[in-house]
């Protein structure tokens, strides 16, 4: 096995509007190695990938390939130089066949006519690399995720790629499919292809990689050999900081308001937990762990397959969010623009929508009462606005978020689910939202706080539920909450029994 560096990254920096997504990162990738890049959400992994594959341009630093400096202006240039990328959300043409997906833009023609026969044969050859018996004529949309991924790998190999970047390649694969993937990766490795493996599933990273580099807050932390590392080491590299925790030990009675037992849905399994009156229950986990999906099922936004939900001791099963709202359960959705805001409508309408039916006689809105209610929340949440009649799009992100919080507070919930309540919110508004959450809990409201920001979870939660791949791995009591413990449970605390052959 050769050990020459094909790709050398030096002092790479990139910022988006003043926020440093990547600062002075240096990294070397050798041919024939699997080099994993790990880090928390927002550590800079995706930015690194985007720069190397030519999707975004770097601000500073140099990238050397075989010793010569490169600067890509488009993904196409990167492809031509032998850098292929397989995205987490496979970017394929679902309505076209395998041949077209592999040879898009490189279709073999004879006198301007597509030579399907030759292409089909070439496709079969290309697919041999991934040891897959896939019909070249099959519609890609009909293939399984794993098969699609293999088609992408075959495509990269067919393009004579030398560096293959895989972004969370096994996030939606079964164990068996992951095994197949790892076997193919090892094969590519033997052929001298360098593989950059982006993941936050630590135990698999340990299994498949030769070397592991950790990023944190856009900075390079270190590179270690996989053979000499344990999960704990990796977690420490990813987390790394000592958080000063303003340890507010809140007091609340252990009187369950919401009891969820063995709830099972499409993206979560066998979830059981209790939420106490006046408690802030944090939900932590990596992206895709199934936290939002579990919450949505409780709220009646999605269906669940099995299990039971009790509210104040009574079994409930909400068939729509409306029923949940009427029973005193409210949920702030994670994607503000897509799932919460009515951009064209006024601030008033945005705040009133959920509670409006309860402020009406026979469907006719009691306007004065409604205005009074809304004005009350505008004041108490300190939403900065000119007039309630302006469209909500005229507000800043923080004030938009407060508007939606106001929408849910207006329904007087006893259980308030907050999914990423401080996403895209400036620091000042963040602090105000934290204050408000505490105040609400002190007033007896039970709060589920879903967040991908560990500091947020740690400072705010009374207890923390940790989820991983759809399952609740642990529920941490107040005294056990710290970053490393949460990360260990979220990223791979439960080590798999099956050993995967390397």
């Amino acid at each position, binding site marked *: 096995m050769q050990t020459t560096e094909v790709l050398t990254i030096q002092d790479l920096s990139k910022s988006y509007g003043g926020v440093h997504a990547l600062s002075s990162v240096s990294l070397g990738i050798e041919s024939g190695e699997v080099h994993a890049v790990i880090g928390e959400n927002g550590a800079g992994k995706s930015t690194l990938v985007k720069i190397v594959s030519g999707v975004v341009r770097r601000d500073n630093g140099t990238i050397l390939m075989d010793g010569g400096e490169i600067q890509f202006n488009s993904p196409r240039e990167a492809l031509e130089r032998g850098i292929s990328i397989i995205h987490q959300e496979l970017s394929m043409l679902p309505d076209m066949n395998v041949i077209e997906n592999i040879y898009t833009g490189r279709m073999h023609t004879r006198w301007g006519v597509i030579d399907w*026969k030759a292409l*089909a044969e070439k496709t079969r050859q290309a697919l041999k690399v991934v040891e897959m018996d896939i*019909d070249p*004529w099959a519609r890609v949309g009909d293939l399984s995720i794993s098969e699609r991924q293999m088609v992408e790998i075959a495509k990269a190999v067919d393009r004579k790629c030398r560096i293959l970047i895989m972004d969370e390649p096994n996030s939606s694969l079964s164990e068996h499919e992951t095994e197949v993937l790892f076997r193919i990766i090892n094969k590519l490795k033997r052929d001298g292809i360098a593989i950059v493996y982006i993941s936050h599933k630590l135990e698999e990273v340990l299994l498949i990689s030769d070397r592991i580099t950790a990023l944190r807050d856009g900075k390079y932390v270190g590179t270690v050999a996989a053979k000499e590392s344990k999960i704990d080491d990796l977690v420490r590299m990813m987390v790394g900081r000592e958080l000063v925790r303003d340890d507010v030990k809140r007091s609340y009675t252990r009187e369950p308001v919401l009891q969820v037992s063995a709830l099972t849905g499409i993206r979560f399994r066998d979830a059981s937990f209790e939420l106490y009156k006046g408690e802030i229950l944090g939900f932590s986990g990596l992206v895709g762990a199934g936290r939002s999906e579990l919450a949505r099922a409780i709220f009646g936004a999605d269906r669940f397959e099995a299990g039971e939900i009790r509210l104040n001791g009574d079994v409930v099963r909400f068939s729509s969010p409306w029923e949940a709202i009427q029973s005193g359960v409210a949920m702030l959705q994670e994607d503000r623009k897509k799932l919460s805001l009515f951009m064209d409508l006024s601030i008033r309408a945005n705040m009133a929508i959920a509670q409006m039916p309860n402020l009406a006689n026979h469907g006719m809105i009691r306007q004065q009462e409604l205005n009074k209610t809304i004005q009350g929340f505008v004041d108490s949440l300190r939403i900065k606005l000119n007039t309630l009649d302006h469209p909500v799009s005229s507000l800043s992100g923080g004030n938009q978020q407060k508007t939606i919080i106001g929408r849910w507070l207006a329904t007087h919930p006893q259980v308030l689910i907050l999914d990423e309540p401080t996403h895209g919110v400036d620091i000042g508004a963040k602090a105000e939202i934290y204050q408000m959450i505490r105040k609400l809990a002190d007033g007896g409201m039970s709060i589920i706080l879903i967040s991908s920001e560990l500091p947020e979870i740690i400072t705010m939660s009374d207890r923390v539920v940790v989820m991983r791949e759809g399952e609740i791995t642990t529920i941490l009591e107040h005294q056990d909450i710290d970053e490393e413990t949460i990360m260990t449970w979220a990223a791979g605390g439960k080590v798999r029994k099956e050993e995967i052959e390397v």
Partner: protein
Amino acid sequence: MVSLRKVLLTVLVLAVVAAGVFASGRQETVTRELPPGPPFASAAQPADSGSVMPIRASDRPIRIAVIGLENNPFWVPVREGAEEADRLLRQYNGSVDWIVPPGDAHTADVFGNTIEAAITQQYDAIATIAGDSGIVPYINRAVAAGIPVATFNVETDAENNRLFFVGADLYRQGLAAGEAMADFFRARGNTAPKIAVMTGFFSVEGHELRRLGFEESFAAAMPNAEIVGRVETSDSDANAYQQAQDFITANPNLAGIYVAAGGNVGAARAIEDAGLAGRVFVFAYDFVEQTMDFVRKGITAGTIGQQPDAQGRDPAIRLFNYLVAGEIPEAGRMLTRSDFVTAENMADFGF
């Protein structure tokens, strides 16, 4: 998968070839000597229009297809004409089938397909509406297969192998309308009437022929008259109502409204609502029930007919006579009468 495609393709090619061979073979077998017809563009108004009778019985059954429409009340008497022809011909070993193409719309493709179906069903003769030139190849195909074709009601200018046409000459109808209107106002002592012109669509040739014919003869007969506007109703009575109102508003001494296509009922209703019955008069076409109501009331001064019953009846009987007795129609265009039906003479026309 690939081999399956190949098999399918081969089967398809074989099917097309076989069909081609079969079709051409069939064309060779069916040939019939038919005497040549009259010159394509020659025109005459036959004395027996609407009353032509079968000459003699056929020694074999003669089946005639009449392809028409039913999408508007105008076609009621046309269909009745075709049914009358069927009753008559049954005594002479003949029969008529009234066929409405699927979709009931006057476009060349549906009519073409219906003609082809009639060829396949081995009708002995076909009569069809032939409004646009897209239908020409189908007519020629039928004639090549030995099936004589007559057209009725409306036909394209594009020359083709049809034997004869039965229907109105729209331009001549327009001329007749202009003269009728001039006579009407002259009789009332008004030699400089202000009139408005409504047509269905400026883009429909038949509507334009009626409008231009009218304007030509009316201007010649009444040089001092004034046309205050020309609008299209889209054949809609609701539009015509609004436009008539607007004309009345803008022209307080409006005397008449000429409606070349659909919309005369709406225009007449607007005059009635404005209380101008007896001062503004509508000049219309055809004998639809609601039109006749306004003729009876005197708001519509008169309506110009085109013998719709003859259009359904005569093509079938003349085709029968041609096949059985070799009788050739006197002209390529057998024109129907453009009767001007008014409140006074409507009883003579069975109203």
